[in-house]
């Protein structure tokens, strides 16, 4: 097995009396695609928000490559090489596609407090932005304004913008949500391509897609991990079937 890239120890997020994430201890290994599944309200997105620094844990720790990152803010975590996409499309709507990726690529400069340098002359930033735009399949849409594009293209763009930050670890929060079959297929292919040289933590409701792309699976219910294992192990797990698959696979949104 490959070495551990990210691990959580008793990670907890409490909102009042409710624990959205309840003492979760998990390990994620390099070069694997680890999917987290579970019914709505299981705490999957909250878990991702904790990992990416959008949310501070109530208790527990997160270690990334051996370093405790549980108290770091979102921008610092991004700079360590953890990129994320959001469940609800989160891009720069007034920017063109290229500008979205340029901002992503430029974030890898040590800092952007350059006031009189021309941003357009940062050739490596521009190249990286164009490369990531090509990766997410939007090369021909460089100058389209993001808000004017189709929903599927916006989701692709978000992944492109994230790739421009050159992350090692990708946190993908329901990248297929709301997509048509053809669009979804394109994104699944993209994820499979990204799998070659990235570690990915994926939240997804589309079980067919998850079974195809995932190396490992974790099932969360009510903020707790109820099982972790390979796809085959999880499919065979009685407890998981009762708690989750029984009604969720069919009645999924």
């Amino acid at each position, binding site marked *: 097995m490959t070495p551990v890239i990210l691990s959580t120890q008793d990670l907890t997020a409490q909102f009042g009396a409710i624990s959205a994430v309840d003492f979760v201890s998990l390990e994620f290994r390099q070069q694997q695609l680890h999917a987290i599944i579970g019914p709505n309200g299981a705490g999957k997105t909250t878990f991702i928000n904790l990992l*990416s620094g*959008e949310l501070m844990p109530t208790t527990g720790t997160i270690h990334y490559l051996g370093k405790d990152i549980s108290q770091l*803010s*979102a*921008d*610092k975590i*991004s*700079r360590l090489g953890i*990129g*994320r996409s*959001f469940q*609800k*499309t*989160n*891009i*720069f*709507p*007034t*920017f063109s596609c290229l*500008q979205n990726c*340029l*901002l*992503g690529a*430029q*974030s*890898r*400069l040590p800092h*952007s*407090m*350059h*006031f*009189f*340098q*021309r*941003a*357009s002359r*940062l050739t490596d930033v521009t190249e990286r932005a164009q490369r990531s735009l090509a990766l997410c399949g939007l090369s021909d849409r460089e100058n389209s304004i993001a*808000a*004017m594009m189709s*929903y599927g293209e*916006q989701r692709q763009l978000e992944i492109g*913008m*994230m790739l421009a*930050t050159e992350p090692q670890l990708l946190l993908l929060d329901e990248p297929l949500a*709301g997509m048509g079959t053809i669009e979804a297929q394109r994104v699944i292919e993209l994820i499979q391509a990204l799998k070659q040289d990235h570690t990915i933590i994926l939240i997804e409701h589309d079980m067919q897609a998850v079974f195809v792309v995932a190396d490992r699976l974790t099932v969360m219910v009510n903020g707790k991990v109820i099982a972790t294992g390979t796809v085959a192990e999880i499919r065979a797990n009685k407890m998981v079937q009762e708690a989750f698959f029984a009604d969720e696979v069919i009645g999924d949104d």
Partner: protein
Amino acid sequence: MEFSRPVRWLLLLAVLLLAVFPFVGADYYTELVVRIMIFGIFAMSLDLLIGFTGLVSFGHAAFFGLAGYVLAIVTPESSGVSLFWSLPLSILASGLAAAIIGWFSVRTTGIYFIMITLAFAQMVFYYFQEAVQWGGSDGMFLFFRPTVTIGNTVILDLEQNRTFYYFVLGSLVASLLLVKRLLGSPFGRVIMGIKANESRTRAIGYATFYYKWVSFIIAGMLAGLAGYLEVTHTGTISPGYLAWHESGIVIMVVVLGGLGTLYGPVIGAFVFVVLQDTLQDYTSHWLLIMGILVILIALFLPKGVTGLLDQILYRQGIQNTNNEDHGHQDHRT
């Protein structure tokens, strides 16, 4: 941020017209144009905040007035002081105040930010209102304009109204080019990202607080330049220059001209000053008409004069007006 080709030509034409104006216009109107240009710099500095960083500051007059006070304070009654140190000093004072006020306010957003910038600006206002050594509510006079001399050679005699006119025109053009350059820099990219979607900007690795803070400081310094020029021009400064009505008027001018365009606020300043000048001749209650105008702008002209011109020139009316609520960027699905 790049100006389109017709805009570039129009701007060049405008600068040329401004350059020959003192030779053709009456003195009274030349004075008026000086006022417009100074107000234009002030409004442009606020556009950097509202139009490009997405920070609706309601206390911008504080930085304008503060620099003016610094000039008045350092100028003795018997002679002018050198511009070479008094200008940087005044601008730095505004920058320092913006750094302190910004450090507290920039960490908040929305209504909080509006109220906090307003409250801090009032604090500066009350400070000068109660500072008897600096004239209290009456303010101060500036008896001599700053001097620009090297050794014994007078480089520019700002007491000459025409020389001063060109100095202000030069400052306006320099400010425009400077801010435009700033917006084309890596820094400019980040602040525009913050305006478009701050949480996303943070999530891709920018410590947005510092970028907003620096933007706030730069805008404060540019407002300081305008305040310095204003006091040089009028020869007086009083707490009224820092009052919240000034902050309100400059917001109106920015919106009237067109947010996020840089040159729009200068057009806004033009419209406002000319309107004020005309209305004041008719009635002492000109603010009543101004109030109605402000409401009409808020309701019907959120993209300002430049937005209106854009619509007429390019006939993209439908797409643009659908987008006019800058606050709600809906993700079209």
